[in-house]
């Protein structure tokens, strides 16, 4: 298992609060990595450190053996694509235009849009299933459609890495599964997908590599089938449970045993 994107002994702070101390984590190349853990366990903070939105107080984040801080902005943006949790689209923007903004790191300040840009935008819209929406105003779309448009924007960036912060948060269950299916397909096409997820069962179902965090530490990491058991769920979420195989995929499924009060 090779890991080209790594956090090495990073200490991360959010304002005055130290979130993680000397944390180590390697992201397996070409895998679907899901980071799970209770609220405020530092998973989003870690993701932001990977994409250089947060600079570690100590330690370093490296991509291909080079510290991410040492990359020129656009060069890094051609490697790492990131989608925050609740991005806000500008007024009056249409789907195609928003997706085309993902081409920014491939463009110089003066150059007009190239044929490669157009091709990348078309491909991204096809992959995310938003081609039919191209001329619609983004603010008129439903939540599920809008999230797919943002994914297309990141895809147009044509980065080998996709990092997404809770991309399913504001979607209904059908759109959650559709989106995760899309991410799994992208991984199948050779991209490395790293996503923070709330739902442990979805994470087990879609991820090849699961990272369980609590209090800013990595409690366990590995293939979900290898690491998820009742002890881990108790340790990470404080939740008594039994683990059964998912009837559809056979991946671990967490069923809480907490009695209703």
């Amino acid at each position: 298992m090779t890991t080209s994107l790594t956090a090495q002994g990073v200490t991360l702070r959010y304002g005055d609060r130290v979130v993680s101390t000397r944390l180590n984590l390697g992201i397996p190349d070409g895998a679907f990595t899901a980071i799970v853990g209770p609220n405020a366990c530092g998973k989003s903070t870690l993701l932001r450190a990977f994409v250089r939105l947060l600079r570690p107080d100590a330690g370093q984040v490296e991509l291909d053996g080079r510290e991410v801080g040492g990359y020129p902005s656009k060069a890094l943006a051609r490697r790492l694509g990131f989608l925050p949790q609740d991005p806000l689209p500008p007024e009056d923007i249409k789907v195609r235009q928003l997706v085309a903004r993902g081409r920014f790191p491939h463009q110089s300040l003066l150059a007009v849009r190239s044929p490669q840009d157009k091709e990348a935008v078309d491909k991204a819209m096809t992959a995310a299933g938003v081609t039919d929406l191209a001329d619609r105003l983004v603010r008129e779309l439903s939540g599920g459609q809008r999230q797919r448009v943002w994914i297309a924007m990141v895809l147009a960036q044509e980065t080998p890495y996709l990092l997404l912060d809770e991309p399913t948060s504001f979607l209904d269950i059908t759109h959650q599964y559709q989106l995760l299916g899309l991410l799994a397909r992208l991984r199948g096409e050779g991209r490395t997908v790293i996503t923070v997820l709330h739902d442990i069962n979805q994470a087990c179902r879609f991820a090849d590599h699961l990272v369980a965090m609590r209090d800013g530490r990595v409690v366990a990491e590995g293939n979900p089938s290898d690491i998820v058991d009742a002890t881990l769920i108790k340790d990470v979420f404080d939740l008594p449970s039994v683990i059964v195989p998912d009837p559809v995929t056979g991946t671990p499924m967490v069923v809480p045993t907490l009695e209703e009060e």
Partner: protein
Amino acid sequence: MSAADRSLPVAKTRRQVPRAGLLLGGLVLLGAVAVLSIGIGAHSVPPAEVVRALFDYQGTDDHVIVWDVRAPRALLAVAVGAALAVAGALIQILGRNPLAEPGVLGVTAGAGFAITIGSALGLAGGQAGQLVFAIIGSVAAALLVMAVGRQSPLRLVLTGMVLTAVLGGIALGLRMMLPDAFDTYRFWSVGTLAGREQEPLALPLAAIGVSLLGALLLSRPLNALELGESVAQTLGAGVARTRTATVILITVLSGAATAVAGPILFVGLIVPHLVRRPAAGSVPWLTLYSMVLGPVLLLVADIGSRVLLPTGEVPVAIVTAFLGGPMLIWAVRQYGAGTR
């Protein structure tokens, strides 16, 4: 499909004019208004004669008027109009506030305060002196606002407003105590183009020209910045760099415009509103359209300032206020109808 997920009904789709075509139309309109502006005045020159004077100079009285008075004044209107409109577009994008205008960064107040001080010291009597003081005041105010507001657009705008109020109060006090300062200031504080074309304008015009080019170069990174700080940063747009450069451009543009023409409100507020719909979310187009419509609006207002009163000129700032008020109400209603 759940109720929450049903998309909102699509607004009726209008056939869209290509954006380049609209820009071309705007340029033609600008040319026409410029010729009219050069022709109309106390001594009217017919449009055909204006064109002849510009391209085939014969040295007649009409041609001398065109070259020595009217054309420089029209050029000044074009530069000031473009500067104010683009500065307005930039501050609205930076502050993510459609009601912001360049004055909110404290630049105009800084210029006014410096001129009050300058005239109290007896140094800002001539227009050249006023120009120098206005520029110093604008830049000082912008530096102060940037130092306090740092990288937060909200803090920048709030600081600018506070500074405007404080400087305005002090300046008012000074002017009441010192009648001479009051006279000089009163002359400057009426935003007008009349007579201003006779001053040395090479430097402010060059500053405006360079800044307009800079605004075009910045428009792509600003496009990215509109997607929010995190997305812009991870697209490689250099958020801090882009913001700093934008504030500098706003300062130079509105500072130079205010220095040569005095405070002219509404152009920076209204023009970006009017072109927002056709620009359809693109900062480069918004900037280009503002560069064309700002001059058109100011040229029209300047023509109005010459013909509205039989007895003499109305300062152009008063005309823009009269034009701008109703236009603002119209624009806000349009905008509200679109967003619901």
